[in-house]
């Protein structure tokens, strides 16, 4: 009985494999997509992914809440909650593409259904619909002056802290328009981009603290390159952004103007090796100015069309809502190997050293007072001006610095040109000495709650994706 069933399954798999490969790699292999007009194609896709995650809220084992009430002290550690998440991700893309113009629209949904296998509340609190919609246009592509625009709206969700209390829902709209120009031989190319980003947390409607993260950001960017040899170019970028956290309680301290300028070389240096090297200056100007450098070095090894190996180093600095700026030193390695035309193994690894500016979370807030030991205190009074609660926040005196390790191997199999399977695993580990201790002394009730949040965590994820895209 078992052997019979096994034989049937094997036969079906062999047939799928045979037809899959014969269709994929035949000279007259069918193209994907539905042809709407002569130059317009429509693609439809759906990805179904069961995912098992061991630490859904990225909680630290050391985070603890101590409650003292009525002479009794209770201690509660943060829970590490694992769960099985089902992703249902349909997508649609339509694109008109001819020699003069490209106009495209795509929308992608991802419903994350938490099954709540360890804690049934997970399902209700974290399940959410994410989406991403993009519209773009490129005009006069065959000319020497090219016009482009692109708008991307994304909605994403993430747990709102280490406790299983809810989720953040973030809306981000990024619009940009660009003019590019080049010489007839296409050796010289320049591009001027202007754009506006708008970021909004849906939960900021009900939670004032989340308003600190809403921002509007205008940017201007110039990119130029000179291809002085085949597959090789020199390039430069000059860019500036004005980022205003328009609803923030620390608006004047958080508002920042990052400025970046860098030059670099990129291209093939031998038959199998390519490289990129760039470096420049980054300044982040807010209440205080941060002068730093940016750099990127990458070495790429390619062999035939089967092996790809890249490793490199990246240094960058970004604006931050609560630290003025944050920077990363990142070392990374990406490898993929294709074999038997339908299989791909990949390995991505990165180590990042993340450093932050001085915390500005309580800067300029009248209700908070800085104490001599560096802690912040605040009192809440009732109508008769009698203190009912006292708050204290303690953070380490030094600047925050984190270590982040990410590792992700995967295995993919293309059964048909439009059907594939992917098994992947991701490991994420953050190590940091940074903590935040918050003490609430409920004077009127005679109770006290002390929460010490730590931010180191380990998270494992295993995903099996069935991808259909036609």
């Amino acid at each position, binding site marked *: 009985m078992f052997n019979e069933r096994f034989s049937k399954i094997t036969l079906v798999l062999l047939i799928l494999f045979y037809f899959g490969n014969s269709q994929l790699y035949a000279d007259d292999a069918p*193209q994907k*997509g539905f042809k709407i007009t002569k130059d317009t194609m429509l693609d439809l*896709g759906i990805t179904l992914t069961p995912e098992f995650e061991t630490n859904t809220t990225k909680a630290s084992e050391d985070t603890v809440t101590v409650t003292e009430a009525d002479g009794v002290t209770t201690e509660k550690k943060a829970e590490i909650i694992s769960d099985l998440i089902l992703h249902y991700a349909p997508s649609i893309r339509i694109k008109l593409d001819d020699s003069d113009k490209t106009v*495209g629209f795509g929308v992608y949904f991802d419903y994350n259904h938490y099954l709540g296998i360890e804690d049934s509340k997970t399902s209700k609190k974290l399940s959410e619909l994410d989406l991403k919609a993009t519209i773009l246009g490129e005009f006069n592509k065959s000319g020497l002056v090219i016009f482009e625009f692109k708008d991307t709206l994304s909605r994403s969700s993430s747990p709102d802290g280490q406790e299983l209390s809810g989720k953040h829902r973030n809306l981000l709209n990024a619009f940009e328009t660009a003019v590019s120009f080049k010489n007839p031989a296409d050796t010289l190319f320049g591009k001027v981009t202007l754009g506006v980003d708008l970021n909004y947390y849906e939960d900021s409607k009900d939670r004032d603290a989340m308003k600190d993260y809403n921002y509007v950001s205008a940017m201007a960017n110039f990119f130029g*390159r000179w291809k002085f040899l085949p597959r090789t170019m020199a390039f430069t970028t000059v860019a500036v952004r004005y980022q205003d956290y328009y609803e923030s309680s620390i608006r004047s301290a958080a508002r920042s103007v990052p400025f970046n300028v860098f030059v670099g070389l990129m291209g093939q240096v031998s038959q199998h090796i390519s490289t990129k090297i760039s470096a420049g200056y980054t300044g982040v100007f807010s209440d205080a100015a941060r002068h730093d450098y940016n750099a990127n070095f990458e070495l790429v090894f390619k062999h035939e069309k089967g092996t790809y190996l890249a490793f490199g180093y990246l240094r960058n600095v970004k604006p931050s809502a609560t630290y003025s700026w944050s920077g990363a030193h990142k070392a990374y390695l990406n490898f993929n190997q294709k074999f038997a035309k339908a299989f791909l193994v990949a390995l991505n690894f990165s180590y990042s050293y993340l450093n932050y500016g001085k915390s500005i979370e309580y800067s300029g807030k009248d209700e908070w007072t800085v104490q001599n030991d560096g802690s912040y205190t605040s009192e809440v009074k009732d109508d008769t001006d009698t203190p009912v609660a006292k708050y204290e926040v303690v953070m380490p005196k030094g600047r925050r610095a984190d270590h982040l390790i990410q590792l992700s191997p995967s295995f993919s199999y293309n059964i048909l040109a439009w059907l594939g399977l992917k098994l992947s695993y991701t490991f994420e580990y953050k190590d940091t000495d940074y903590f935040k201790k918050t003490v609430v002394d409920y004077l009127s009730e005679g109770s006290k709650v002390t929460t010490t949040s730590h931010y180191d965590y380990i998270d494992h994820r295993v995903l099996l994706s069935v991808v259909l895209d036609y």
Partner: protein
Amino acid sequence: MRKFTVLIFGFLFVLPVWADEGNDVDPNSLMGEVDGFLANIAAAEQNIASLSKEAEKAKDTKWLNCVKGQASRVSGYSQSATQMAGEISGHINAGNVREAQGKMINLRQFSEVADEAYAQAQACERSNPNAGNTSSVSRVAADTVNPSPVEDGSAASSSNEDSVTAAMTSDNTEGMVTELDTSSVSGSDMADAAGQDGNDMVEAPSSSNPSDPVTSGVGAEAAENPEDRPSWEPVSRTE
């Protein structure tokens, strides 16, 4: 013993001289190679020019645009090649054979690119496929993720083979449905800069961070994530 020592040192002294002689290259043969490459580039330029005339005669704008794109490309490389040939000649006359050999590698690349451009020009798609040349490149597939500038027949695009993007990025994933970025519709990579023309000015963009819609979801595009903010908020506790 003394004789033996002198012999050994003498041998060591002349060894590099012999070795150098062994690597010596005849300047005349180098110049012959230079002329060969230049002739090859000129031939490709001429062939594309005649294709261009053919396209003009046929009044096929699509075909003409595509061929002209390749003509511009070869013209640019031809100028650089002529300049490089002058430099090589200068190095040979100055006796710097090694420098000349180094430049020869680049000249060879120019010559190869010229051949590729001619091949691309021959394969340019026509509005009326029955006219003239029967070879044609298929329309771009519905693969909106990895568009190939060569295949879309765009005169503005350069050959994928000699593009910077092709040199820097992985092409192993082409055709792998599991590696598609279905969360986004993509443009034509007009800059051919492996994404370096991206407008995220605060980060020097890195090609090492391919978007993976399955593992990262659209959350990868989100702005700063306040995951480190504790859900516990002192002020809201009293509200």
